């Protein structure tokens, strides 16, 4: 064959192959870069949602109450969809279309989580106007309220949504709880993002309904923790600026306060009286009279609770193997095989203790299970099968220790394949939880520092501050909205550890860190503030009558 012919044959073979390869590789590149850009958009939208949640909770006095929290979450989910819709508008998806591709949004909270996901509306047909037939006794359908109000419109219906409508909304709160069965004991332990637990059920043939913090290393009556004296002087209160509705003169003004059950009680030195502020109203607290510091109370109650758990309820040898699912079937070694409340090597509050391992395992098991059900149950009628993606270990680390939002976006076509992405954004600036790193340290120069700032001199420490109290707050007057900083009296944050963060020591365990620093004044301020802020949080289990009993005059 002539060389020319060979050349022609070569071209005939190679050219199409090369063209197809070219197009194929080009497509793959496009698909993958589209995937990366979708990932970024999803991350951004999730961050927007989190920011909305953060802003709403910081500026609300009632954000820790369930119905108010639900409202904040609905608002945050709206922000997510708005953000994702505006991010995707460029490629022609609008908000309604995108909602079909979001099988779930998960809001992990202090002791449980909300799943915001699409559901099918079920509408009960019976209504209050149904009539019982006096002869047969059968229930006959009466007119709907709307039909009675609009006699001209026989088609009028009461409900906005019809039976079978596809809607999106927040599903009921799911606690991080686990059921344990051991002999005749059958009870549920609800865990949280810190060492607070709730125990409910039958133990030693009696009903138990108890909650509290688990802590080791507390001295008698809670006066010391890890050998450090906890401040018991009730005149040592933190103070902050607050806008008092209806007050004359300087306003916002500085008042000392203590926080209990999510409510701040301010002390007015002039009138020697206590008051609180809720929903823009000032409430006088006439009989309020603290007898001890909140921090002292925290350690005292934690000691009593930990002893009750181990000795009275005899849970010292409760094993991870005793865990069962909701049907009472043993989970085996899924949650580990070790004694939960007894650990010879670690204190119960340490991050590597048995209790903490169990806590993380339960939270993870619960989220994984409920989320995969929510995602699998969701089917938008298309031919895409929604599935829960496998989350990586480092992603679980983020979820298990912080308030976070997990968002899923699945089923969008991105050229060669179907997009299946998720994003996890965590947050440590909210009213939900007091993390170990949320406590800042105030020094004598009026500046506050991260607790692990290596430049803090022990003798310059004044007190610990909860980082949320440093955030800007708003109040409304007749002529508009105003902003103020509650900690206005301070000189601001330490530049090196708050803004630049170059002088921050690496630590995962603040208990060890404080011990390494010599358990001096820094540790005292830190643990006092940690106890104070944790005890002051709103807890579903807290009984208002008991708070009254402990903190009010009789």
């Amino acid at each position: 064959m002539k060389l020319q012919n060979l050349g022609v044959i070569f071209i005939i073979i190679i050219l199409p192959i090369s063209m197809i390869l070219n197009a194929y590789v080009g497509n793959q590149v496009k698909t993958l870069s589209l995937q990366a850009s979708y990932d970024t958009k999803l991350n951004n939208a999730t961050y927007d949602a989190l920011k909305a949640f953060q802003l709403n909770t910081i500026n609300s006095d009632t954000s820790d109450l369930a119905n108010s929290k639900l409202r904040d979450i609905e608002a945050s989910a709206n922000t997510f969809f708005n953000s994702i819709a505006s991010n995707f508008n460029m490629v022609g998806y609008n908000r309604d279309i995108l909602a079909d591709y979001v099988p779930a949004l998960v809001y992990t909270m202090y002791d449980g989580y909300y799943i915001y996901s699409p559901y099918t509306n079920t509408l009960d047909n019976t209504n209050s106007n149904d009539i019982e037939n006096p002869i047969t006794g059968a229930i006959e359908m009466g007119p709907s309220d709307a039909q009675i109000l609009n006699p001209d419109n026989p088609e009028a219906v009461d409900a906005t949504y019809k039976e079978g409508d596809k809607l999106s909304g927040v599903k009921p709160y799911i606690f991080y709880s686990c059921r344990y069965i051991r002999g005749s004991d059958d009870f549920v332990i609800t865990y949280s993002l810190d060492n607070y637990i709730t125990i409910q059920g039958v133990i030693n043939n009696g009903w138990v309904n108890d909650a509290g913090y688990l802590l080791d290393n507390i001295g008698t009556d809670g006066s010391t923790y890890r050998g450090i004296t906890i401040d018991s002087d009730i005149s040592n209160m933190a103070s902050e600026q607050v806008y008092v509705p209806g007050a004359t003169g300087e306003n916002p003004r500085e008042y000392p306060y203590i926080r209990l059950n999510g409510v701040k009680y301010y002390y007015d030195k002039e009138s020697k009286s206590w008051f609180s502020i809720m929903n823009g109203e000032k409430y006088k607290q006439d009989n309020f009279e603290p007898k001890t510091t909140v921090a002292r109370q925290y350690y005292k109650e934690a000691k009593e609770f930990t002893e009750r758990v181990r000795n009275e309820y005899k849970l010292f040898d409760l094993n991870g193997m005793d865990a069962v699912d909701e049907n009472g079937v043993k989970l085996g070694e899924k949650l580990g095989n070790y004694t939960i409340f007894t650990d010879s090597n670690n204190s119960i509050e340490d991050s590597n203790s048995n209790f903490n391992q169990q806590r993380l395992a339960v939270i993870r098991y619960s989220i994984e299970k409920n989320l995969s059900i929510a995602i699998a149950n969701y089917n938008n009628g298309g031919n895409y099968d929604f599935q829960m993606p496998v989350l990586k270990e480092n992603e679980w680390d983020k979820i298990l220790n912080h308030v976070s939002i997990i968002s899923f976006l699945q089923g969008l076509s991105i050229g060669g394949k179907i997009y299946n992405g998720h994003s996890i954004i965590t947050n440590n600036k909210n009213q939900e939880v007091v993390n170990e790193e949320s406590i800042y340290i105030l020094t004598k120069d009026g500046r506050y520092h991260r607790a692990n700032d290596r430049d803090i001199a022990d003798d310059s420490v004044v007190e610990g501050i909860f980082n949320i109290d440093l955030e800007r707050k708003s109040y409304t007057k007749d002529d508009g909205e105003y902003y103020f900083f509650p900690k206005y009296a301070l000189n601001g944050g330490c530049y090196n550890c708050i803004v630049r963060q170059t002088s921050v020591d690496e630590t995962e365990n603040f208990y060890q860190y404080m011990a390494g620093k010599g358990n001096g004044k820094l540790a005292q301020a830190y643990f006092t503030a940690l106890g104070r802020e944790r005890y002051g949080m709103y807890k579903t289990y807290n009984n208002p009558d008991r708070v009254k009993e402990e903190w009010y005059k009789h």
Partner: protein
Amino acid sequence: MGDTLITVVVIALVAVLMFVFPLMTMSDRTDDVSQLTVETATTEFVDNARTTGKLTMDNYGKYVENISSTGNAYDVEMEVKVLDENPGKKTTQTQSKKIGENVYYSMYTSQIMDQLETNGVLTLKEGDIISVSAKNKTSTLSQQLKNFFYSVAGNDTYSIAAEHAGIVTANGVGK
């Protein structure tokens, strides 16, 4: 004579067609794949720093290793815009009523590397902005071939480049 000339021309043409053309196409594809690898690695590296609030030597090492696996050497440029905001402070420059009047100061590659080498980690806070870009500094096979055949001018032209940036979403803590 004429035939010999044509044969020589054809041999030259066929040589180009049979060797150089496939070589160029394949090296172009290799560049595409490298481009993709670098883009993906950069996005992952930045997004990881954004969501954890930490830029670690470990992650940086992995990132550089990842992009170097394409067989080229890269110039990696990083910039961190640190939000110069002091929560709770008495505001003088910025008004407390306004949002978005924030002041940022920048840290560039060498400063970031200094920090990473001494501490192993650069901690970021919510609101900081991080951006990373990578460009190839050695010329790829496809670039060399192109330079040889169509002599594209300039030494600093690059064919693989990726960049990604974003706002940090979490305060970095712990290891």
